[in-house]
């Protein structure tokens, strides 16, 4: 019987166990320790939301606080990876990718290909994603589609503490550059997590809930919105199947197609803005590959094409709700063939 820990603790444990196992694993980021150079205590933060707290006491200088220079230190993590280390760099908020994106998408993502298969860049870039924190437009985005679009990058976005620990360990051991997305609103969410170290392979979606009427394909926080919708719909006699993608690149399209073939209906739920989103990507792939199985038009549930607003009432309207997901499912049932 596994104990329950939060997603935040799962991340901390994954980092701790991997650093203990492999001396090549180093961590760097802004305030991942906290207090560097000052007169107060070290490890004063352990990351802006305390995710890495306690690691400095165990692993010392293998955790490095960085100056406010994303281009330089994300680039340095990438360069160190190309030289045989296994760095885990924290890009505090995925919204900051703009200031270092070249190093990620033109350098790390492309080394293996451009150098004819003769390079390995085993870097993990951890970043907080998602809205609901009242952090406003520049600290709340879900930029998964931007990274998923880039050949050479792997993109991971877990929804539970169990998936988080296993996928982070897998990310560290993986030999390609991985963007590891942590939803800031799930940090406190608790779930059963084994104490031992374990991995979860990339490219394997998780069927969180089985159902025969409609497939909901989603990831991250939206898995939980889908579960809320599922509970509501169950009272109406509608059983939805929920597929948690877990990794957006590589993508487990087979599980998605299997589900849609079974149910004939698809609702893609995505916290990213709708244009060129993961939802749009899945919808297109299903429409192309399982058109015949579809009994209704595909539905997407996403925020609007707008930045994340600050005011709590607006932000709550921005983020897709369980009710909106349920409505979308109902739409596929109403308008479809039987």
């Amino acid at each position, binding site marked *: 019987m596994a104990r329950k820990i939060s997603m935040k603790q799962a991340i901390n444990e994954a980092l701790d166990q991997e650093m203990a196992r492999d001396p090549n694993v*180093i961590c760097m980021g802004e305030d991942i320790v906290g207090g560097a150079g000052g007169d107060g205590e070290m490890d004063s933060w352990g990351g802006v939301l305390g995710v890495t707290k306690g690691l400095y006491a165990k692993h010392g200088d293998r955790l*490095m606080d*960085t*100056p406010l*220079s994303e*281009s*330089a*230190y*994300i*680039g*340095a*993590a*990438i*360069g*160190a*990876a*190309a*030289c*045989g*280390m296994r*760095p885990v760099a924290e890009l505090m908020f995925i919204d900051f990718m703009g200031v270092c994106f*070249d*190093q990620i998408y*033109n*350098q790390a993502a*492309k*080394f*293996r*290909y*451009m*150098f*004819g*298969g*003769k*390079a*390995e860049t085993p870097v993990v870039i951890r970043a907080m994603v998602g809205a609901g924190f009242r952090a406003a437009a520049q600290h709340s985005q879900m930029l998964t589609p931007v990274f998923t679009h880039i*050949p*050479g990058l*792997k993109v991971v976005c877990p929804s539970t503490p169990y998936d988080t620990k296993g996928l982070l360990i897998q990310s560290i051991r*993986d*030999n*390609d550059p991985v963007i590891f997305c942590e939803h800031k609103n799930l940090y406190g969410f608790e779930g059963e997590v084994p104490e031992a170290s374990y991995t979860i392979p990339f*490219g394997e979606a998780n069927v969180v809930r089985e159902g025969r009427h409609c497939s909901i394909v989603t990831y991250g926080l939206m898995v939980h919105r889908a579960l809320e919708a599922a509970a509501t719909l169950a009272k109406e006699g509608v059983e939805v199947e929920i597929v948690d993608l877990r990794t957006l690149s*590589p993508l487990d399209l087979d599980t998605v197609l299997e589900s849609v073939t079974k149910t004939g209906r698809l609702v893609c739920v995505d916290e990213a803005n709708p244009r060129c989103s993961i939802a749009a990507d899945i919808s297109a792939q299903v429409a192309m590959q399982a058109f015949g199985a579809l009994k209704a038009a595909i539905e997407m549930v996403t925020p609007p094409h707008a930045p994340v607003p600050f005011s709590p009432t607006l932000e709550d309207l921005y983020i897709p709700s369980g009710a909106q997901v349920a409505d979308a499912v109902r739409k596929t049932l109403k308008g479809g063939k039987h």
Partner: protein
Amino acid sequence: MAGKNPFPLTRDELLKCYRTMRTIREFEERLHIDFGRGDIPGFVHLYAGEEASAAGIMIHLGDGDRIASTHRGHGHCISKGVDVVAMMKEIYGRKGGACNGKGGSMHIADLSKGMMGANGIVGAGAPLACGAALAAKFRGKGEVAISFVGDGASNQGTFLESLNLAAMWNLPAIFVVENNGYAETTSRDYAVAVDSYVDRAAGFGLPGITVDGTDFFAVHEAAGEIIKRARAGGGPALLECKMVRFYGHFEGDAQTYRGPGELEDIRANKDCIKKFAAAVTGAGVVSAAELKAIGDEVLAVIEDAVKQAKAAPLPTAADLTTDVYVTY
């Protein structure tokens, strides 16, 4: 006939450096011709005229030391020991090229020789070199990493951030600014508010030296002290090499931004290989005949490299999607 050698390099090292510089020069001159004929796809950015910088620095390095280069990377590749035939095949986009035809001129790399790649993004190599230096620090074997940038790249945020990062972490990272006076067509007099990269380094907390980049021995001595200091844990430094490039930003550049007579003047008066040859033959350490023999050998190597490149197979559709990932 050799006179007593007054230089701080052995006779063999001097010959090796001459061979390296001649190889770079003839490689680039040949590309200039073949590109003009339409044989070569894409863009090439030639290093001709800048050889003393690459040769004078790289003679101090081993395979465990790393360099991150620029879009004008052929000279760095050759002096770091990347195979010339593999380079030529790569520029021709062939299988068996240094990157199996997948990278081209701007992305030639050989990590086994510590060459972390020419780079199509100006200034992108500086953070990568900081990472290599960080890895070297963890390895603890006294290895160093060198970031080559140009006068143009010195304005990129990545470069400036890297100076700070290297200084605050005391990384064995060395920044070499190859100041040839032009960022594409734009003169450094316009683009760089204060044309001193040593000043920029000092501002960030690392010392710097300015040398005449067309003087192999000045580069060699300055680089030697900087690298020695970095290996011993003395931290980062900057070396500004003032130099000239003989060709344009890329091949096809008509260079109308040059002053009248400028190209003729630099070929005549600022040729680093001619200066090197005059110094070593003048001191009686090597003979003109020996240097000519090396030159002839180099030309033969280049000729053979072009032949092999033109004969090498082109990649096929099967190669299109390989090596995007290690595993997927």
